[in-house]
C-alpha cells in the first residue's frame, strides 16, 4: 500500500483522485457505484450568484473518443445551493469543493463570499472560462488581464483554498497560470474543455443549440497533458491535471508531468465506478514499481 496523500495548499487529500465539475453532480448520483469517501475530492457543479437555466437542448454531441457539451452552467444559484444542497453533502467524508462561475468579477466575488461561510466546504474552483459579458463575451480566462481581475476580486472575498480552472483556448496557458498565481491563487487546475463544433449534414445545421461547445474525453488528453507540463514548470503553486483521464496509467502521466492531483470527468459517463479503479490502479502501479509514496512520481519527468 503506497501513501497516496497529497496537499493542495492547505487542502489535504487522502489521494490524488478528484471528480471534475459538471460530470459528477453533487456526488449523491454516484453513491450506488462507489464509496464517496474513497475519493480525494468531489468538485461539484458550477454555481453562479443567480440561478441559470443554461442553454437550449441539444446540449451535447458525441465525437470520436469524446463529446461536445454546451450545457451553459445550469444551476439554481448559490443561495439555493447553500440552503438545500449543502446540507445534503456537507457530511460526505471527502473534500467537497464548489466550482464557481460568474459574469463579472463582482459576481464571482459575491458568490465566493457566500460559499466562504460554509464550514464544510474547504475550497472553491474558479471557472474563468465564462464569457465576460462586459467585454463582448470574451472569456475571462483567455487574457492575463481578464483572469487576474477575477482572481483578484475573489481572493479578497474568499479565505480558504482557491483553485483556478484554466481555459486551454489560449495562446500561452503558462502566462495565464502565472498571472493567477500572482493574484494569490493557491492552485491551478487544467484543462477546461476545448472549443469545438459538430454539424448534422442531413439537416445542414449545427448540432449544438448554440453552435459551439466544449470538447472533453480521451481526444483532449495529449493537449491537456502538454499544458499541465508547461504550467507545472511555470508556477510554484500545485497543479491539478484533467482532460481525458480514463485509466490509472493516464493519471500517472499527469502526475509525472507535474500534477499534484487529477480530476476525472467524462470517463464517469462510460464507467460510473472509474474513479475508484483509477485510485486503486495508481496504488497498484506504485507498489509494482517499488514506490512507497505518490510524491516519488509527481513531477518526476526530467
Amino acid at each position, binding site marked *: 500500500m503506497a501513501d497516496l496523500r497529497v496537499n493542495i495548499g492547505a487542502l489535504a487529500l487522502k489521494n490524488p483522485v478528484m471528480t471534475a465539475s*459538471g*460530470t*459528477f*453532480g453533487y456526488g449523491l*448520483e*454516484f453513491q*450506488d*457505484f462507489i464509496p464517496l469517501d474513497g475519493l480525494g475530492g468531489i468538485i461539484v*457543479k458550477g454555481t453562479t450568484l443567480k440561478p441559470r*437555466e*443554461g442553454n437550449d*437542448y*441539444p*446540449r*451535447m*454531441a*458525441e*465525437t*470520436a*473518443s*469524446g*463529446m461536445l*457539451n454546451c*450545457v451553459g452552467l*445550469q444551476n439554481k444559484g448559490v443561495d439555493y445551493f447553500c440552503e438545500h444542497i449543502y446540507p445534503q453533502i456537507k457530511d460526505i467524508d471527502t473534500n467537497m469543493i464548489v466550482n464557481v462561475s460568474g459574469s463579472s468579477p463582482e459576481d464571482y466575488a459575491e458568490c465566493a463570499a457566500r460559499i466562504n461561510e460554509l464550514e464544510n466546504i474547504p475550497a472553491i474552483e474558479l471557472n474563468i472560462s465564462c464569457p465576460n459579458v462586459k467585454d463582448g463575451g470574451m472569456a475571462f480566462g483567455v487574457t492575463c488581464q481578464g483572469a487576474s481581475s477575477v482572481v483578484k476580486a475573489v481572493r479578497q472575498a474568499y479565505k480558504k483554498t482557491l483553485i483556478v480552472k484554466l481555459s486551454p483556448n489560449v495562446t500561452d496557458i503558462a502566462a495565464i497560470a502565472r498571472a493567477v498565481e500572482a493574484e494569490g491563487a493557491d492552485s491551478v487546475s487544467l484543462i477546461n474543455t476545448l472549443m469545438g463544433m459538430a454539424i448534422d449534414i442531413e439537416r445542414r445545421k449545427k448540432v449544438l443549440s448554440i453552435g459551439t461547445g466544449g470538447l472533453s*474525453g480521451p481526444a483532449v488528453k495529449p493537449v491537456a497533458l502538454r499544458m499541465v507540463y508547461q504550467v507545472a514548470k511555470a508556477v510554484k503553486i500545485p497543479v491539478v491535471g484533467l482532460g481525458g483521464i480514463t485509466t490509472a496509467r493516464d493519471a500517472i502521466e499527469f502526475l509525472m508531468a507535474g500534477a499534484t492531483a487529477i480530476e476525472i470527468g*467524462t470517463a*464517469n*459517463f*462510460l*464507467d*460510473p*465506478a472509474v474513479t475508484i479503479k483509477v485510485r486503486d490502479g495508481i496504488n497498484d502501479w506504485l507498489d509494482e514499481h517499488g514506490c512507497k509514496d505518490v510524491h516519488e512520481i509527481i513531477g518526476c519527468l526530467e
Partner: protein
Amino acid sequence: MKKFILDLTVTSVERLSEKHVLIRLTDAQPLPEMLPGQFVEVRVDGSPVTFLRRPISINFVDRTKNELWLMVAMIGEGTRQLGRLQAGDKLNCVLPLGNGFTIQSGGTALREPFQGGKPALNKPLLVGGGVGMAPLLFLGERLKEMGFEPTFLLGGRTKTDILELDLFNRYGCVCVTTEDGTMGEQGFVTNHSVLVESFDKIYTCGPKPMMVAVARYAKEKSIECEASLENLMACGLGACLCCVEKTTEGNLCVCKEGPVFNTQRLLW
C-alpha cells in the same frame, strides 16, 4: 431504486424486422428490481467511431428465466454494433435508470402493492409508435398482473413496423394503425376508431410528433397522460445536465426526472 453496473450475458438476439433486434440478457445473479418505463445505458464495444453508452428502454423482464429484454432500433453506428451481438457475448449495462410509469394521479409508483378498493384506473390506453412500443410491453404486462385491462394502440408506417404483436396480445386488446394501411386501420394512432371508447389513463412512447398529438387528445378529453421521452444523453444519471427537457418547472433531466413525464408538465 438501487443502480448497478453489470456485465450481462446475451442469451439470444432475435431479428424482429430489417431495422429492429430483440436482445435477451441474463446474469448469474438475480436481475435487479426494475420498473416499466426505466431504461438501461448500454456500453457499445468494438465500435471505434462511438464513445458514449446508448440508452435503451426496458422492453420486458422475464423473472422465470431471469431475462432482461432490450429492443434495439438500428439507426446509427452504435445501435448497429449492438445488432451484431451474439448469444454468449457480454454486454455491460448501467441499470435501472430513470423514473418509470405511474399508475394513478399523485404518482404512485407501480412497485407499490395495490391496496384494493376502486382502482384509479380500469382502462389504461398504451399508445406506441415504432420502437417506442418497447417499454409498453413491460408496462402492459405489469398492469395486467395488477388486475387492470390495458388496451394497446400501436402505430407504424407499414406492417413490418408493428413488433411483438403476439406478445402484446397476451396482455390486452391490441389495435393497430399503419400509414400505408398494410395492417390495421390506415392513418395515425390518433385516428383509430378505438378512441371512441373512454379510457382512464394514457401512456405513450414513440416519435415526438405522435406523442404531442396523443397529449393533445388526452388534454381535450381530460385524461391524465404520461409520455416517455428520449433526448440525447451522456451520463444517464442526472449529473451532466445534457438531456434536459423544458417543463413547467424549468429544465429537467430526461434521464433522472424522466424519461416519463406527465404531459401537463411539458411545454408542448
